């Protein structure tokens, strides 16, 4: 399991209402981009700088600050890679 990459330091207002947690079991990701496509705030992408143990570019959150915690990414993921907490 890998946590999403650290987002920019939170402002005091952001710290009061904690951000959702979006956790990827990265070794299961197949880079299909279904999560990327359904995310309403478009904060997901494939990390093209590396590959996971299966040889795929894993999906990551690149802007957690904009995450609404809707869980759509987790819902559509065919491989149950993503856990979302709010």
């Amino acid at each position: 399991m890998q946590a999403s990459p650290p987002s920019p330091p939170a402002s005091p207002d952001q710290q009061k209402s904690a951000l959702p947690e979006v956790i990827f079991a990265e070794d299961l990701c197949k880079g299909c981009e279904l999560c990327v496509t359904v995310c309403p705030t478009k904060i997901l992408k494939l990390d093209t700088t590396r590959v996971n143990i299966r040889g795929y570019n894993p999906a990551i959150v690149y802007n957690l600050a904009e995450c609404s915690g809707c869980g759509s990414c987790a819902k559509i993921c065919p491989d149950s890679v993503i856990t979302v907490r709010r």
Partner: protein
Amino acid sequence: MKIVYEKSRGLTDVPMHYCPGCTHGIIHKLVAETLVELDVLGRTVAVAPVGCAVFAYEYFNCDAHEAAHGRAPAVATGIKRVLPDNIVFTYQGDGDLASIGMAEIVHAAMRGENITVVFVNNAIYGMTGGQMAPTTLVGQPTTTSPLGRSRLGQGAPLRVCEMLATIEATAYIARVSVHTIPRLNAAKRSLKKAFQMQVDNKGFSLVEVLSTCPTNWGLSPVDALRWVEQNMIPAYPLGVYKDIEGGT
């Protein structure tokens, strides 16, 4: 922090072998979640098809039978007659259900067997490498219709929900898709309804799920979702085709 979404305990820990973006994974999740939410997982028996989902029993966390190609509704009939208090479901693709298994699905429906059928329709034969299916669209190229399915000689697609809805002893027949979040949510509601009908001994239920096959359609997983929207939904309208409880 509350869980918004996590992996269902209706699934095992075995990583799925399906192609990237294949909707089998999504449909497995919806079925698994439904079984957990209805609290029937411990008395469920799954019947796996021949097709990409031949290893479905590796992923569903319940007892299971592998079935010969197309025969899952007959196998399910045997199981349900012996174990009427168990929840018995089949999970079948378009070759399994609408080609070699056509007699079995029609007659299980005819008898009103109190089972639930999950019908995964992706208009092609996935596991064997992309041949034409009964549900392949006219004009759709496959490895056995290389110039596109020809109306002359190869016919036109079978609409399973419409056909089975004419059978008197069926209880619930619905067609759904999982290519957007709203459609996925509606698909889950349909599955829940279908399984609840079995719990309530209401009779035969079937949910047809329009699905993708990115590998054999020659599309990226995301483009494959769009293909469902643009091509499959006009050919296979979503909706409830039979509901003895009168719902929609």
